[in-house]
């Protein structure tokens, strides 16, 4: 319980400290806060592992009056992934977002925004109340939008505004669904909703909430805001935006469809969600293939990689939830969420290093970077392996589990999407890899300390290790899972 509270309050306190303390103490305070929050997230995971889900009713008020927080395996695992990415980003930002490099405004604003984002992400992972989740989503959006605009360049501000428009539209759709739900049931607690009497307005409410969350998760065709917003931000911010922010709305989507209202999961709805995901995989991959800048390739790849996760709906949702393959499919989708987060953050941090070293992220300017900065090349290659879904990475475990479920349930078309997506990922990542590993290097890049190069490498290694050591995370994710009846294939 203490760990749960610490994970929410420590980053908030650190955010205040990063604003209020004298200039010299701000960055150290933020880093200290990051370290402590990482410790809290790990501690929470240990507690969940040992004793099962941790539940807390805020202020002692039980739902439906109060708000319940509950850290299950899923929430705690996402918390740990977020903490690892945040810590790595904070360490990289020490170099990249220093006031001397990024300018005084970005150098000041980045730290509190990052910590605020962290606190709200952690809240999204554990909150059980739909309205509370609305507030949390808004706070995530606000800090994310501010992070996009932080450089103050015209194109960044335009991208941030476009992002804000989409996100606000998404929030309002979600809010409308929440209002309808409350009007029908008088409660917004996920566990209480699961035991509700079905009402005629439920389908509309779930549809509105889902639509809103899809906009925020940037699922095809709502993805248009994402690539430019993610690539216009400074690289450490891009890492947060691409690796973490869509995961919050995604998690709420999973909670809605698997925990709060699984009875409404009609086959047609599940099929629609997965079809949009499949189109995201293909379309995002094709667009990534057409980009000439590293950050845009990586950003479009996020659109494609998020698409995989939506295949979970027909594979584990609705009536499929009771089948033997459901646990595998569900866990596979979460593995994809986790390994994509780690690998994508590593890629953006590599892109950030190249931007500092070469002043550009055009592929034509990055030729031979692996020779100049070998650790970054290695990190990008490892992260690529995860995104391509090649063994022994976390991406492979995800793909294997989803594919097995697709075959076991007879829906092999989704397996085709997974296979095609993997080949597309190999195609669009081959170009940056070939450039980075080319022999020549035109201009001598600025020296980058090894300790900085090691940060994305660490994240990339973690994304591979998630596949090598996947049995513990697999079991961990089953803690507090909605349908524990089925125990894998």
């Amino acid at each position: 319980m203490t760990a749960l509270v610490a994970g929410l309050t420590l980053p908030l306190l650190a955010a205040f400290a990063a604003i209020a303390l004298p200039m010299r103490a701000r960055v150290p305070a933020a880093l200290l806060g990051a370290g402590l929050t990482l410790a809290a997230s790990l501690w929470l995971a240990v507690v969940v592992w040992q004793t099962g889900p941790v539940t807390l009713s805020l202020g002692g008020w039980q739902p439906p009056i109060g708000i319940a927080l509950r850290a299950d395996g899923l929430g705690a695992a996402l918390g740990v992934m977020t903490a690892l990415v945040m810590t790595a980003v904070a360490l990289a930002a020490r170099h990249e977002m220093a006031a001397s490099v990024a300018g005084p405004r970005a150098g000041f604003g980045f730290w509190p925004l990052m910590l605020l984002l962290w606190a709200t992400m952690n809240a999204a992972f554990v909150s059980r109340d739909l309205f509370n989740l609305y507030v949390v989503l808004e706070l995530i959006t606000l800090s994310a939008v501010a992070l996009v605009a932080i450089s103050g360049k015209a194109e960044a501000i335009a991208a941030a505004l476009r992002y804000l428009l989409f996100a606000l539209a998404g929030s309002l759709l979600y809010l409308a669904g929440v209002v309808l739900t409350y009007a029908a049931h008088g409660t917004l607690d996920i566990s209480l909703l699961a035991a509700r009497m079905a009402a005629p307005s439920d389908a509309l409410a779930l549809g509105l909430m889902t639509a809103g969350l899809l906009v925020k998760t940037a699922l095809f065709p709502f993805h248009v805001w994402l690539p430019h917003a993610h690539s216009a931000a400074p690289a450490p911010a891009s890492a947060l935006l691409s690796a973490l922010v869509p995961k919050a709305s995604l998690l709420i989507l999973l909670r809605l469809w698997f925990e709060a209202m699984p009875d409404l999961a009609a086959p047609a709805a599940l099929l629609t969600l997965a079809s949009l995901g499949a189109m995201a995989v293909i379309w995002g991959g094709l667009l990534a293939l057409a980009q000439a800048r590293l950050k845009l390739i990586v950003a479009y790849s996020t659109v494609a990689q998020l698409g995989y996760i939506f295949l979970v709906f027909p594979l584990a949702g609705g009536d499929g939830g009771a089948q033997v393959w459901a646990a595998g499919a569900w866990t596979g989708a979460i593995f994809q969420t986790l390994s994509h987060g780690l690998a994508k953050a590593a890629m953006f941090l590599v892109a950030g290093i190249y931007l500092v070293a070469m002043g550009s992220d055009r592929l034509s300017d990055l030729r031979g970077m692996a020779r100049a900065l070998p650790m970054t090349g290695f990190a990008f290659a490892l992260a690529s392996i995860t995104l391509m879904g090649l063994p022994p990475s976390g991406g492979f475990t995800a793909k294997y589990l989803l594919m097995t479920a697709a075959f076991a349930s007879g829906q092999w078309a989704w397996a085709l999407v997974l296979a095609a997506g993997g080949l597309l990922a190999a195609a669009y990542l081959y170009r940056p890899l070939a450039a980075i590993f080319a022999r020549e290097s035109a201009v001598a890049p600025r020296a980058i300390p090894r300790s900085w190069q090691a940060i994305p490498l660490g994240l990339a290694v973690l994304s591979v290790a998630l596949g090598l050591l996947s049995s513990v995370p697999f079991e961990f994710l089953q803690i507090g899972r909605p349908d524990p009846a089925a125990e894998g294939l």
Partner: protein
Amino acid sequence: MTTALPVLLLMTSLLPAGVTFFLAQDSHALRNALQLGGAVLKLALIIWMLFAVADGAAYEAEFPLAPGLVVLLRVDALALLFISLSATLWFLTTIYAIAYFGTKAELSRFFGFFSLCVAATTGLALSGSLISFFIFFELLTLSTWPLVAHKQDKPSLRAARVYFAYALPGSAALLWAIIWLESATGPVLFTEPPDLSGLDPAALRAIFALFIIGVGVKAGLVPLHGWLPAAMAAPAPVSALLHAVAVVKAGAFGVVRVVYDVFGAENMTALGVGVPLAIVASFTIIWGSVRALQQDEIKKRLAFSTVSQVSYIVLGAALASPLAMIGGLVHLIHQGLMKITLFFCAGIFDERAGVKRIDGLNGMGAQMPWTSACFSIGALGMIGLPPLAGFVSKFYLGLGALEAGAPWVLAVLLASTFLNAAYFLPILYRLWFLPLASGAKGDDRAPGLVVPAVVTAAATVGVGMLAASPISPLGWATLIVTQGYGP
């Protein structure tokens, strides 16, 4: 101890790989010591296990990753056959590579991936389940890619791209086949043949085809062989490794596993997929030879010769008779020994005489007697001259074809022998009987390069001469077939 051994076997290449990546470019002594030390240790372990496994022992180690996703390492007779080949040749190729590269740059990267590639091959050989086979199969693709691209010039990078473009769809097909099959049978272990009754014959045939496409890309089955000649842009030690030890062999080994441990000879006959596979293999044998005949570069000719020769192994597996199987398995070893000899020599001709094309070899026999002699032995072995290694393989394949009731295979073998002679004998003629071109000179005063070639050439002679002994590859292949697959 029994669980530690397979892991240890893997670690003898994996640990040197891991450490080598982080070594400075100029710490040659340490790097060489690591590489050779690992290779020697691995050989010692293998010899120790050879005796134990001959007595029927099996070693197993298991790492569950997720339900159904279990890495299972298991030492059985077939695995040992492949490992002893790869470990011996790894050792020799390392000596050769150290001499070949001298103090050129990027050696830590090269040897890192080199031993990683051997680790992947070891894991592939030890895999006791389909999914672990797949994992190491992919690891092999990933670790050989930087080796193909090693020179980082235009042809190498193109070769690496082509390699990837062939390998990844291949592995997608393989994964597809594995998951499709396992969705009906549960995880497939090589020790117990899966129950295929849950799938209808049409689905099984499709799965079989996907399997063959998946492993066939690496085995260079026509029309999936396009990457192999392109990969000749890589340095000579890499070609040697690719053709004799790791990639192509992994594909052929995969065919053997799929045919015998996944489907089984009986199911193959029932499904009627053996004969089509034999036809594809036969076509590859002839096609590879014909294409080899058309090449003017030594390495290109050898590459197409590999395409042709590896399909002997596939043919042996496809015929699904014990004798043909023995012929195929023993060719796994024999082809490796002969082909690596030829590639070692091709590299020496290039390094010491600057000769890349066949017409540059005129009269080199007198200049480079050791190299030329080794090349000749390898070439004659490939043609199948008794008592060299290639003869034994072809003999058993022929007997097996008769046993399987497919006498047309004899015609294929005969045609292939003529074609082999047609593309190798002119080289030997040039080496020994034509006068040296003016200005051409060469020598083989490079023991690090020549000794490995001499050892493998001697082995080519040795395994043929001693074929009747129980510890020869033939004896071992017979043991495998009688232990596991005999009637």
